[in-house]
């Protein structure tokens, strides 16, 4: 299916999964209800070999969403021009259905920290994030989707809510949004606000993709719940319920299951995709 305005393959309103090489054969032989795949951009920035050959083959079968995890859009420094060029090269080569990145930073002083780190929400950080997104969108020649983070703490220096911040970024840059429902649940639990209230305040009309994943449970030193976004297990029931609440407001959207650590055998991931498929079906009726 081609998007009418961009003439690119669009992500279907079906379940997708984060692609792992061990699931290659299963996906090629019988993907079941899985209608699209997400890949992490940085894993496909080598010069050749199996990763690129597999991705080329998969892209003939599935619409692909390229998800960057290393651009550091929220970083204080300027974006790494070499990394921007690598992203542009990958997007040109693959022509994916979608490109997305995170509201977070991960690089400082040319050191990459391999985690999605938090930033305060205020006028200064808003200007910085918008400049970086403008530069990225200009470099890759298309609009991106920006994902809401998982938060474990808040900044005294914030004077906007996260949903106000994301709405302002989208207004100024024209970027779409990626709504990670598990991240909403994790952040709302950790910081003590209503996840339903967050969803209702989110600019849902800009949501091009929804993510779901598993999290771990811990406590802070005061005995308060501390949820950690791990992508290492099944999506929990309260997050499925929050998804239903979300889909009732948005209607069906491309819906991704992320499972990045302790990756299970295909039938386990396929069962999660099946549950996502049922949730999408319920949202239509």
């Amino acid at each position, binding site marked *: 299916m081609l998007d009418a305005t961009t003439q690119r393959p669009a992500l279907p309103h079906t379940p997708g999964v984060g692609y792992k090489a061990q699931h290659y054969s299963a996906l090629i032989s019988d993907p079941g209800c899985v209608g699209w795949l997400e890949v992490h951009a*940085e894993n496909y920035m080598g*010069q050749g*070999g199996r990763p690129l050959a597999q991705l080329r083959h998969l892209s003939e079968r599935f619409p692909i969403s390229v998800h960057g995890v290393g*651009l550091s859009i929220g970083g*204080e420094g300027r974006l790494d021009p070499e990394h921007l060029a690598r992203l542009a090269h990958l997007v040109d080569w693959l022509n994916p259905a979608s490109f997305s990145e995170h509201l977070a930073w991960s690089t400082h*002083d040319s050191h990459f920290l*391999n985690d999605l780190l938090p930033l305060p929400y205020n006028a200064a950080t808003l200007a910085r994030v918008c400049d970086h997104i403008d530069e990225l969108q200009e470099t890759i020649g298309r609009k991106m989707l920006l994902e809401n983070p998982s938060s474990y703490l808040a900044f005294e220096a914030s004077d906007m809510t996260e949903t106000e911040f994301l709405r302002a970024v989208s207004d100024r840059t024209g970027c779409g949004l990626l709504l990670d429902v598990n991240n909403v649940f994790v952040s709302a639990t950790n910081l*003590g606000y209503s996840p339903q209230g967050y969803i209702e305040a989110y600019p849902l009309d800009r949501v091009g993709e929804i993510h779901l994943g598993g999290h771990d449970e811990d406590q802070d030193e005061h005995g308060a719940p501390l949820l950690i976004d791990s992508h290492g297990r099944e999506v929990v029931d309260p997050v499925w319920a929050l998804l239903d609440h979300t889909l009732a407001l948005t209607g069906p959207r491309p819906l991704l299951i992320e499972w990045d650590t302790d990756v299970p055998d295909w039938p386990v991931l396929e069962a999660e995709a099946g549950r996502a498929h049922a949730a999408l079906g319920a949202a239509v009726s």
Partner: protein
Amino acid sequence: MMPGQTEFTAALMDASRPAPQGLRDGRGRQAGKRFDVYRNNVAVSLTEALEAGFPVIRKLVGDEFFRAMAGVFLRAHPPASPLMMHYGAEMPAFLEDFGPAGGLPYLPDVARLELALRRSYHAADAAPIDPASLAAVPPVAMAGLRLHFAPAVILVTSSFPILDIWRVNSGAGGGAPRPKEQTALVLRPEFDPRPVDPGPGAAPVLAALIEGATLAASLDRAGPEFDLPALLGLLLSNGVITGFDLED
């Protein structure tokens, strides 16, 4: 006051520093343990990347030693780019100077071999020549032959038996390492790199050929047992040669 990313990064990488000021939980209390989530994410994710990148080093030193060593390494050498496929390039030099591993002097060379396998895995694809085209070169012209090697081909020399050590500790089989120096030629016939022994006396010849020397100049470096047809057979049957030219 807003903690800058310089302060945030310094506290991330050094657990003896307090968490930055200005971070709160949802009730306005100092963030405390919540900052440790980020510290832990950074250290664990980089340690896991090193474990995935150096499985034989990990086997040789044991899980506990490797994790402790990775903790020192990742603070001295955080990744220089978001391409984690390249992370750990400083490991051989780090191991040369890492006192607690001083009893295992072959570790740096084993790390070089593991890095070479990873580089080979991600190297550019290249179509090999038809062996018949090389066979058609007149014998008189062979002295001026220069071979072009596929980007996935990497030579790792060592004064230790790195091939035997790698095989025994990577599940590739083989008996106990023999006490002799070995050179590993990393090949990637299609997508899976593997290290092979290029044969007796072949290492200096291969090194010269890969550097672009002519066959005649390379053969000047051959050891007494060197077998040229055997080496060419190994290279041609594994898709190593992507082209050649002939010097007059």
